[in-house]
């Protein structure tokens, strides 16, 4: 058996190297696929070695950033987090991460107290929950996303609720501002830490078009919102049955928002308020920071350490990371669904810079993007009217993206030129960079597989690290 085990782990490790050499995209899931198929009992040994427990982060938006923020905090609290790579968030992606951190005997190599900190695909959470028996589960939010793959928001919330009640983690960390998630807490048998926003300069008083939680999860009556922060996240109440947003344990206030690059957040952390300057803007990043802080709360991390961790965190590629091409700035923001796209647009419009915004929007429709691109018609593009300069659309559905902008009358009107349509991403990027002037910013908004393509293109030019190292 000993030899067998070595050869399985060896095969998995070798596969990863081979895949990387052959540029098969880092081979992030391949080793896990091998281990998943051959030796399930590895998982039990690994979970025992992770004495700090396992944390799973799931939800539609914010998984990657929440994991990165939490990792910075836990690292400074004396833990050694083991995390999966961005997007490799099915069970095999998690196993791959564990293979990578193991020696040839399949034992984890850890310098400190190990903690598994994994992002999990929202559709896969029920399956992964049963296999990994996590200590903490974090639920960030649920928005309509890839309806062809995940189904409807409420069905997903019901599936989560069922499996979380059946196999409960020790602690459930939940966004109190998302009614579909707050309702899950109702019959949860163990500890709950709720996080939420108390105020933000971005707050609105009504729901945007693509909101997914208009009805009370308890009585089906229409919910009424006093404040809306982001999509359907906010302070809600059901006038019919009286159910309302629960009071969060970890509460945040957006004090100042300075465009893409920073956000001041005041956080109430067990009666101990503190203020932190995040190196990324946007309401959704305030939520990510609150989720990470709520995990820190579950681990009894001191305030000082939470603050340090959040302050030094760096965004992943495609999550508002800024790349300089000489004197031209490129800011890439992943767009996956109407909720995230609307927020990206709001963020770009409030970036604190004068002048029209230059956009390169890349719309793909592969399985991992969602094959159904109808969702771009749910995004509120009208707010870009009169605010754009250069507009290039790219990707497999470049034409549909351009069409969407035409019908929002953002491009192709009497006083704006038509968009440039270039399905090839490399060429589209070159065209866009050539057309903008020094000192200007190009906002690149790719869907998921387009982001991977883009990262490959930039890595080849030595401008960013490949995604399996980022």
């Amino acid at each position: 058996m000993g030899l067998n085990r070595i050869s399985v782990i060896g095969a998995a490790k070798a596969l990863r190297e081979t895949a990387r050499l052959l540029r098969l995209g880092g081979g992030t899931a391949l080793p896990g696929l091998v281990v998943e198929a051959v030796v399930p009992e590895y998982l039990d040994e690994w979970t025992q070695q992770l004495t700090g427990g396992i944390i799973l982060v799931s939800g539609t938006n914010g998984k990657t950033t929440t994991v990165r923020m939490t990792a910075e905090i836990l690292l400074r609290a004396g833990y050694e987090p083991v995390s999966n790579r961005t997007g490799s968030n099915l069970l095999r992606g998690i196993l791959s991460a564990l293979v990578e951190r193991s020696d040839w005997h399949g034992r984890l190599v850890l310098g400190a107290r190990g903690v598994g900190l994994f992002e999990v695909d929202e559709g896969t959470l029920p399956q992964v929950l049963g296999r990994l028996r996590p200590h903490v589960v974090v639920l960030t939010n649920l928005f309509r996303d890839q309806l062809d793959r995940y189904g409807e928001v409420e069905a997903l919330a019901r599936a989560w609720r069922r499996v979380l009640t059946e196999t409960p983690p020790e602690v459930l960390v939940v966004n109190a501002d998302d009614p579909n998630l707050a309702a899950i807490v109702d019959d949860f048998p163990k500890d709950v830490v709720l996080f939420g926003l108390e105020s933000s300069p971005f707050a609105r008083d009504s729901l945007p078009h693509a909101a997914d939680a208009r009805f009370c999860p308890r009585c089906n009556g229409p919910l009424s919102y006093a404040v809306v922060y982001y999509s359907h996240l906010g302070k809600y109440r059901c006038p019919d049955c009286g159910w309302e947003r629960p009071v969060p344990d970890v509460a945040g206030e957006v004090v100042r928002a300075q465009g893409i690059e920073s956000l001041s957040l005041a956080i109430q952390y067990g009666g101990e308020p503190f203020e932190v300057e995040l190196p990324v803007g946007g309401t959704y990043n305030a939520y990510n920071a609150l989720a990470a802080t709520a995990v820190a709360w579950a681990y009894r991390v001191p305030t000082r350490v939470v603050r340090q961790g959040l302050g030094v965190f760096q965004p992943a590629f495609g999550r508002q990371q800024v790349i300089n091409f000489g004197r031209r700035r490129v800011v890439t923001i992943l767009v996956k669904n109407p909720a995230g796209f609307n927020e990206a647009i709001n963020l770009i419009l409030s970036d604190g810079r004068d002048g029209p915004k230059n956009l390169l929007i890349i719309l793909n429709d592969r399985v991992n993007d969602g094959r159904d691109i109808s969702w771009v018609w749910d995004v509120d593009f009208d707010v870009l009217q009169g605010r754009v300069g250069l507009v290039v659309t790219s990707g497999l559905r470049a034409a549909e993206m351009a069409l969407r902008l035409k019908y929002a009358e953002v491009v192709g009107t009497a006083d704006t030129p038509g968009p440039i349509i270039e399905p090839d991403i490399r060429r589209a990027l070159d065209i866009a960079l050539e057309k903008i002037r020094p000192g200007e910013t190009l906002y690149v908004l790719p869907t998921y597989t387009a982001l991977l393509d883009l990262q490959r293109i930039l890595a080849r030019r030595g401008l960013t690290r490949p995604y399996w190292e980022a």
Partner: protein
Amino acid sequence: MELRIGYFYPDELNLYADRGNVICLTRRCRWRGIDVRVVPVELREQFDPDEFDILILGGGQDRDQRVVADDLVEVKGEALRAAVESGVVVLAACAAYQLLGHYYQPAEGDRIRGLGIFDAYTVHPGPAEPRCIGNIVVEWQGRTLVGFENHGGRTVLGPGATPLGRVVIGFGNNGQDGTEGAVYKSAFGTYMHGSLLPKNPHFADHLIWLALKRRYTDATLAPLDDRLELAAHQAAIQRARAGD
């Protein structure tokens, strides 16, 4: 000239970006100097069959379908039937299409009664059967329509129903008989949900033309520059062919 669009259940049946259809009709009319008024028609709200020239009904979450079905049959049923009989243009996608048939039999629970405007019924074959999901290409009046379908229910047309078109790629009504959608007078039912009209400008203009013809007798539509629309149409056909 002016057209009045009734946008049914904008809060409940808005899951698959059906707003794209409303945006498309509105812009294509306004670009031609035709005024458009879009009026939401909500749950529990009655309407007058003479109030609108075009009615748009879309797809919703499963939970909403029962609520909407009750409302559609009990509150709006009579007016909707009268509107269809008088030639009002109706575009009903996905869940709404199913409700315009005789009934919808869900995988679990009781049969949901429909309006019977189309001689058709829909049965969900149970959770074991895969949903019909993917890009779809349909032949309609010698041209193609492109869209995306995502439905569990299978619709069977009766002898009194005319299909909207023939499936070229995809599933359509039931994945068996090659039919897609249904037409009765100027009412169109289809599984092509969401943003169907923008990338099928010929179909969008057909609906506008029918509505104008009914209201103003003499209706000619000025041509628009549809290069972008047709590029999106072609891209959708290519993606449907690629099948990945």
